């Protein structure tokens, strides 16, 4: 037993030496997170910034110009007055504007009659996201204007009802605040899966595995010596990420550090397990890294809900996300950062992560051989 502990510690120390002396692992564990956090924090912004649209007013009456003014003064839309639909069409084709709104000549007349579609909205369908945003914004402007009109005339049957939107947990609805916790998940995946996918394969490729297998080292000791150093590296990296996000990036953190440490440990267990399993099975650094990229990194970015909303994915893809450890970690991280220690969410996520972590490590142990064939 004491021999086993000593061997494990000796191998872990060796692994730490290798980590410290290999500039690429330091780069991946500490520099890459900073770069990723800043990219997610500043470079990738899901809030739409000011979009230019054209505004063609063919009805010059008061009603029409009051409606037109509903487009002015918005922080998201910059409405450029245009003379005709033809000119606006040209500007759209040239890419100068992302859509245009035409207030037709019979706007006031049709409004009086209670007719439909007095306003035409044309958007640039080549960028559907922006197109639907412009359409929604125009609709919103219409609704707001209607409301104002009703309030003024005081003839509205809906009386004092007003819709007021408020975002909870992320009051300013700054996408950075939920992207940062997500980006930490991506970083933990890189460290956990990508970095460890290299380590066992490296021992095989360099021939050091053969020498190790001829010593009294047991499989459990060997795997522990791979898990422990990279676990510590992952936790250190998490500390850096957390520090940077709450200080430099101004993300709120409403949970407890204890919960963060606990759930990170659980996620690292599955990520490290994935990496080690691939490394053990493939015995080749290049293949293992490719496999880890596809099995852990890409799903963590695409399918975990970091960037793309899981609820808007097609059902089969959504089904796949349920077996991704990253999904549960993303949800936990967003909860910890934006909401706090919510036991209902965190306990369920932890349980799942515990299961996947144990499963991957058990599989790795099974796949590790005491001999070469």
């Amino acid at each position: 037993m004491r021999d086993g502990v000593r061997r494990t510690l000796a191998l872990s120390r060796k692994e730490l030496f290798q980590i410290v002396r290999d500039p690429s692992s330091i780069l991946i564990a500490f520099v890459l997170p900073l770069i990723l956090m800043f990219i997610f924090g500043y470079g990738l912004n899901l809030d739409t910034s000011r979009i230019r649209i054209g505004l063609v007013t063919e009805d010059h009456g008061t009603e029409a110009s009051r409606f037109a003014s509903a487009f002015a003064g918005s922080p998201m839309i910059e409405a450029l007055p245009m003379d005709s639909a033809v000119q606006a069409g040209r500007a759209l084709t040239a890419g100068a504007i992302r859509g245009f709104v035409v207030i037709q000549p019979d706007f006031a007349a049709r409004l009086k009659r209670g007719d439909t579609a007095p306003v035409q909205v044309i958007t640039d369908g080549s960028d559907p996201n922006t197109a639907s945003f412009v359409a929604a914004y125009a609709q919103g402007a219409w609704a707001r204007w209607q409301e104002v009109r009703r309030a003024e005339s005081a003839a509205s049957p809906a009386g004092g009802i007003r819709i007021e939107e408020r975002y909870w947990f992320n009051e300013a609805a700054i996408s950075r605040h939920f992207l940062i916790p997500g980006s930490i998940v991506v970083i933990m995946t890189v460290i956990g899966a990508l970095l460890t996918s290299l380590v066992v394969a490296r021992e095989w490729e360099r021939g050091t595995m053969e020498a190790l297998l001829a010593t009294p080292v047991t499989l459990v000791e060997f795997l522990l010596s791979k898990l422990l150093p990279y676990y510590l590296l992952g936790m250190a990296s998490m500390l850096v990420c957390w520090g940077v996000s709450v200080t430099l990036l101004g993300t709120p953190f409403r949970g407890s550090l204890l919960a963060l440490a606990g759930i990170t440990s659980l996620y690292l267990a599955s990520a490290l397990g994935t990496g080690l399993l691939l490394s053990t099975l493939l015995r080749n650094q290049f293949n293992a890294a490719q496999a880890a990229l596809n099995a852990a990194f890409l799903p963590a970015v695409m399918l975990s809900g970091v960037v793309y909303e899981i609820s808007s994915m097609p059902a089969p893809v959504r089904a796949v996300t349920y077996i991704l450890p990253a999904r549960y970690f993303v949800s936990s991280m967003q909860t910890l950062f934006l909401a706090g220690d919510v036991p209902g969410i965190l306990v369920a996520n932890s349980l799942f992560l515990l299961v996947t972590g144990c499963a991957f490590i058990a599989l790795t142990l099974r796949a590790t051989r005491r001999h070469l064939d």
Partner: protein
Amino acid sequence: MDAAAVEFAGLERGFGPIRALRGLTATIRRGVVTGLVGPDGAGKTTLMRLMAGLLRPSAGHLRVDGLDPAAEGDALRARLGYMPQKFGLYEDLTVRENLDLYADLRGVPGAAREQRFARMLDFTGLARFTARPAGKLSGGMKQKLGLACALLGEPAVLLLDEPSVGVDPISRRELWKMVKGLAAGGLSVLWSTSYLDEAELCDEVLLLNEGELKYAGPPAALTARLAGRVVQIRDIAGARRKVLQRALALPGVLDGVIQGQAVRLVLKQGAPLPDPAAVGAGPQARLAPVRPRFEDAFMDILGGGPGGESVLSRVIADAPRQGNDQVVIEARELTRRFGDFVATDRVSFAVRRGEIFGLLGPNGAGKSTTFRMMCGLLTPSAGRASVMGIDLKSSASRARQQLGYMAQKFSLYGNLTVAQNLRFFSGVYGLSGARQTARIAEMVEAFDLAPFLDTAADTLPLGFKQRLALACAVMHGPAVLFLDEPTSGVDPITRREFWAHINGVVERGVTIMVTTHFMDEAEYCDRIGLVYRGRMIAVGTPDELKESVAGPESPDPSMEDAFIALVTRSDLEAAHA
């Protein structure tokens, strides 16, 4: 404790359809160095891995130190030292850290550890380098560190898988001395090697070939079988390669090789001594009996080598002549620096038409750098390299058209078939149309490649792989052929066949330049340049180099003796300067 260090009976191991070990039975004694000798692919590593418990036998009985490696691995590993073929230590860890790691793994406690380290470091001469990363050690020092780590657990049996690969002759001798000392102290050592000359250093030998045990016993008993059957034809007038060719055609001659200016012949059992005049060796030629060596015995077991004739010399055209100037390859003050490091330092030599010139030197001495500059693969920092009078710096591609190149381990496309490889390489060298088809047909005929045309190059037997590589290199009729360690690790028959082809090419006036760290290969050369620490420390015929170091202590030095003496002399001069 039972008497045998290792014993096995009917030991089999297959990999898919390949039978790597075919029913081996032998006993390895305790307290001696036993050589596991054989060419690459003979099954040496497989046997070692079975003993180390890293592979399991397909069939048969195996006991190492009285234990079954497959079933009693844990107990065995505590009593076994194993040094794999690839450097098994961590290159990014220092010497000391590697030792510490292995001391922990082997359960050497704190107090005993320092004592044992001190002894190991003293024994290996690594004491000055404890803080150096293992990756920055020379080949010889790496192996010594590997040995030290394998010895830390004070094993009863030590398995060393090709410990002398990549080790210069001086370190190799030191390594041998160390291992002999260990065996004298009671350790059972198994040393595997593809260098047949090492067999004679062992107390006992297991000779493997293609998975079969060809001989087990003391090496001297094997070479004794050949007593009186090995002779040299000395003082040959004229072409010694022709003499060898004719001698090999004699019915009584089993095997023959060139040794400097002489031709060494192994005769069949009961065959009469050949008449030097009958093989055209000239009036001065005489026969001298020589001591048989292990390789002779191996050839005897294998039933003799191939003939000395090469069809190749008939199918290829005479190499072009460059006016009256006989110098084909020339290096003048050739220097190559990598940062502060001078890999090649003012190297000069000239090779004449139809000559075989060898660059001999330990790994890292600068011979590969020199070689690459001569093929136009690397630009010299200073000096001039030319082939057929064409400067490699100014018109590398025109010069390269004159070159054939055969890289170490045959750089063929393994997943292309033989025919595809031939088409590809001939195309690369600018052959096309009817000429290409004709040349390929000639090569296929000369090298008997017809049955393998649709076989992937990777799955060819070693000998045919070598033929294909050579065919690809000579197809376009180059004036100069560059060979990079062409026969290291191959079995002696394949090596003889290869040199027969090379001799055939030389007959047509092709100039050969070869790098090697292999003393036997050096003997085939007309002249050798000895490269050491980036400098050419000696140039001459093999005999001249040997004579230059002959003295009262060693009246008849071998090529390796000459090498070591010249390198030591150069070190002394450097120390004085």
